[in-house]
């Protein structure tokens, strides 16, 4: 078994295990989290084949947008009590953030190149149409919600 096959089988097994976790857990919030993890493993299988545009799209749109919105919806309908924030932790958090920000500002800057983004030109019209469709769906959703009285 070569490395690629081993990687694909491992990522596939992890994706299926995460999906089973999403199915078996009783909490909707954890179910959405497991679902997002499964999606990341699916994107990982694409990464094994070096399909970078597909990995970027799946990770940003499918995991980043769809997954996070699903987690937010699941958390909204799950939440029973609001969690109190302990102000005692504010100072340590600020100190850690300042250290991280300083380390990041001192880090070596890598120049940004457009290599690997050629697909944007080929699919520009399709992306514009699909974004227009999303805007239309969102406007329809807002109209329906207003009609219901939310």
């Amino acid at each position, binding site marked *: 078994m070569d490395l690629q*096959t081993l990687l*694909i*089988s491992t990522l*596939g097994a992890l*994706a*299926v295990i995460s*999906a*089973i976790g*999403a*199915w078996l857990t009783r909490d*909707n919030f954890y*179910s*959405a989290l497991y*679902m997002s993890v*499964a*999606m990341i493993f*699916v994107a990982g*299988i*694409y990464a094994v*084949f070096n*399909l970078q*545009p*597909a990995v970027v*799209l*799946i990770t940003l*749109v*499918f995991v980043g*947008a*769809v*997954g996070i*919105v*699903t987690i937010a*919806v*699941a958390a909204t*309908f*799950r939440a029973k009590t609001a969690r109190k924030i302990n102000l005692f932790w504010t100072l340590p958090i600020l100190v850690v953030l300042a250290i991280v920000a300083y380390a990041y500002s001192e880090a070596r800057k890598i120049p940004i190149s457009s290599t690997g983004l050629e*697909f944007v030109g*080929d*699919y520009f019209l*399709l*992306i514009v149409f*699909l*974004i227009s*469709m*999303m805007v239309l*769906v*969102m406007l329809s*959703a807002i109209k*329906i*919600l207003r009609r*219901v*009285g*939310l």
Partner: protein
Amino acid sequence: MIVAIAVALLIVAYLMAISAKDLIRLLISLELMFSAVFLAILPLFSISATMAFAILLVAIFTSSAELLVLITAIVITDKMRKGVEVEKVSVGGDIF
């Protein structure tokens, strides 16, 4: 092997949809079905990468649109029926 993983994901998603007690769980199972679809598209890249990428693009945006529609439906159901349980949805299937 990729198709086998996709089928396994799809079966888990179907089981999740069948055993769902609320609409949120149903939404999560549908997203899992879409991830199985993405895996099923992967072998198509070896035949025609351009066409496969276009199909992947359409599938991703379709899943996003489906999410928006379902979230709207869930919010409206919660508002009108005071809950998101599957039992409270009496339209779109056999109820007797």
